[in-house]
C-alpha cells in the first residue's frame, strides 16, 4: 500500500469516526459509497471538507466529476496526486 493511500484511508476513518473498520480492510479499488464501504451522501460532504483541509483541494462544481473522484481509494489518490502536480 502506498503511503498516500494509507493516509487517505486513515483520513476517511478519522473524519467519519468509523469504528468497525481499519485501514487495511479498505480495498483500494472497491467503491467507497453504497456497495463497498457503504458510505452515503452525508459522508461525501464530510470527505469533501476533509480533502480541502488536508490537501487544499477545492472540489469543482461538477457533480459528475466529483462523483468519479470519490469512486474509490484509487480514484481519490489520483485526485490528490494530480492536484499536487498542478499546484
Amino acid at each position: 500500500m502506498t503511503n498516500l493511500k494509507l493516509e487517505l484511508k486513515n483520513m476517511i476513518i478519522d473524519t467519519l469516526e468509523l469504528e468497525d473498520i481499519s485501514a487495511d480492510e479498505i480495498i483500494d479499488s472497491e467503491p467507497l459509497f453504497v456497495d463497498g464501504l457503504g458510505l452515503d451522501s452525508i459522508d461525501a460532504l464530510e470527505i469533501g471538507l476533509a480533502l480541502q483541509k488536508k490537501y487544499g483541494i477545492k472540489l469543482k462544481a461538477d457533480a459528475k466529476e466529483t462523483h468519479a473522484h470519490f469512486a474509490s481509494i484509487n480514484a481519490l489518490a489520483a485526485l490528490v496526486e494530480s492536484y499536487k502536480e498542478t499546484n
Partner: protein
Amino acid sequence: MKKLTPLSRWLLDVAGDQPIAIMNETIITKEQISEKVAMWQTILPLSSGQKWAVYHSDAIEFFTLILALWQSDCTACVPGDNCTATVERLKTSVTGFLGEFEQVSPQYKHIEQVTNQPFSWVEIERSFPAIEVYTSGSTGEPKPIKKSMAQIDDELCSIEELWSFSERSIVLSTVTHQHLFGLTFRLFWSLAKGRLLLTKHSAFSEDIYHLASQYDQFILISTPAHLKRLNHQLDWSNLQGKCEATISSAAPLQYEDSLYAAKLLHAPILEIYGSSETGAVAWRNQAKVETDYWTLLPNITLDETDKGFIVKGPHIAAEHQTLSDNIECLSANSFRLHGRTDRIVKVEGKRLSLSKMEKCLEQSTWITLARALVVTKKREEVAIVAELNDKGRELVQQHSQKWLAAQLKESLKTSFELVLLPRRWRFVNTLPYNQQGKLPMESLQALFETTEVKWPQELARTHIDDNTWRFSFYVPKELIYFDGHFEANPILPGIAQTHWAQHYGREVFAFEGRFNRLEAVKFQSVIFPDSEVTLELEYNPFKGKLTFQYISKKGVHSSGRICFE
C-alpha cells in the same frame, strides 16, 4: 410585487416567452414546457382517474410530466427515490412509471421532437387529487399522503404572504423535488412566482458557491445536513449581498449551525417547521439565541385538545391535523418544539422509525431484544444495542462482533436508506435496565461514548452470594492498554486486570480500604483483544482481601488476591 400564478392555471396564465428555469446554462421558457407537455399527452397512454409514479432528477423534466398527468386528470405519485424496492412497493397502486425508472418498460424519460399542434389547456379543479407523497409512519411502513390542487395552491399563498421575496432571485437548492419540502419550496413556489430555478440540485457547497457566483441574486433551499457542512474555506465574502434568503427544513437547525450558515452566506437563515402530512406550519430565524421559538405561518392556527396539538389551515387536511411533536405554547401563534411524541426520529434530516428498525433486527435468529437510538458524533448516526441469544453469542465466538454487525447491517439494507443504516453496534447479554426496570437513555448512550477506552464492555453481572460476584466482559480492541503492549501482538497487561478487579470489587462490595499489596498473583494465559472473559470476585470483609480470577473457555487466565489496609 408580482402575484402568484396558481399552479391549477399555470399552463393557461403564464406567458409563452416567460423564462422558467435554467437547464445546463440554457434558459427554458414556458413555451418549451408547454410543447413538451402536449407531446407527453400524445405519447402517454393516460386516462382519467389513473395514478402514475413520477421520478426525474431534472426538476423541469419532472414538472412537464406532472403537468401532462394533471391535464389528463391523473394523479402524480412522487416517491422519494427510484430504487427497486420502491418500484416493487408502488407496482400494485399505480398504472405505470414515468421518468427515470430503469427497472420498467416502456421507459418514459425523454422526448426529442415536439408537437406543433395548438395547445388547449384546462384549469385543474381545486378538489383534484394532484399529488401523492410518501412518508414513513410510526410503524415504519411508507404511507401515502394525498394533496389536492387547492392544498398546493393555498400553501403557496400562505408562504408568499409570509415571505414575498423578489422574483429576480435565482433558486438554488441542495434538496430534490422528490420530497415535499423541495417540491413546494424549490419547485412549485418558484414556478408560481415566476422565479428562475436551476433544474439540477447541488450536492456540495462548492456547487452552490460556484453557481451562486454566476448570478446577481439568489435564494438557497437547503437542509441542516448541508448548511452545517458549508465549506468555510471557500471565500464566501465574494457572494456578499447576493443571497436574499436561505430556507432550511427537514429538521431543526442547531443554533450554532444557524449562525454559522448565516455568517458565511451573509443572509437570514429561515427555517420551516412542518411535515409531509401537514406541509409548512411555522417558521423561525434564530439570529439571536432568544429567537429559538417558532411562529405560525399566516392562515394557520394551533390549538391544544385532549387528543394533543392540532394545527388547522387551508392547506392542512382534516386527517393530518394532529401533530406528533411535543409542543410548548408561548402565545397564540408561537411555540417551542420538544421532540416527537412517538419513536420517530430524524437522522441528518431523514425520518426513521426506531420501532421499525428494532422490529427488523428482532426478526433475526440471533437477537432477542434490540434498541435503536441516535448518537451524535461528527454526524448523527443510528446506533444499536442488542441482546444476543445463544446462537448469536456462538457466532461472535466463531467470527467476531464486527462480522455479526456486518451481517445484520446487510439485512437492513433492503428496508432502510443508506443514511439510516446503523454504524455503531453494542452486543450485550442483557440490556442495561436500571433498578426500576427501566432502560434509561443515558445508559444506552453511555455505551457509545468513545473517550479513551479504559474499561471492558460489561455484558452481564451476577450476584452469586453475599461475598461473590461474577462479571462477563467483552475486551474491546480499542482499550488504551493494548497500545504498544505489544506492537504486533497486543495482550491485556496484568496491571490492567488487577486494576479492573479492584474497580469492580469496590463497586459491588463497597469497601473503602486503601490498596496495600498483591498476594499469590499468577498470570497463566494471555487475554487477547476482542475476546470474552469472566471475572469472578470474592471478598473477605474480615481479612480485607479481594480474590479475583479471570476465566474463559480457554481456562484460567489469571488469579490472585488484592489486600487492602
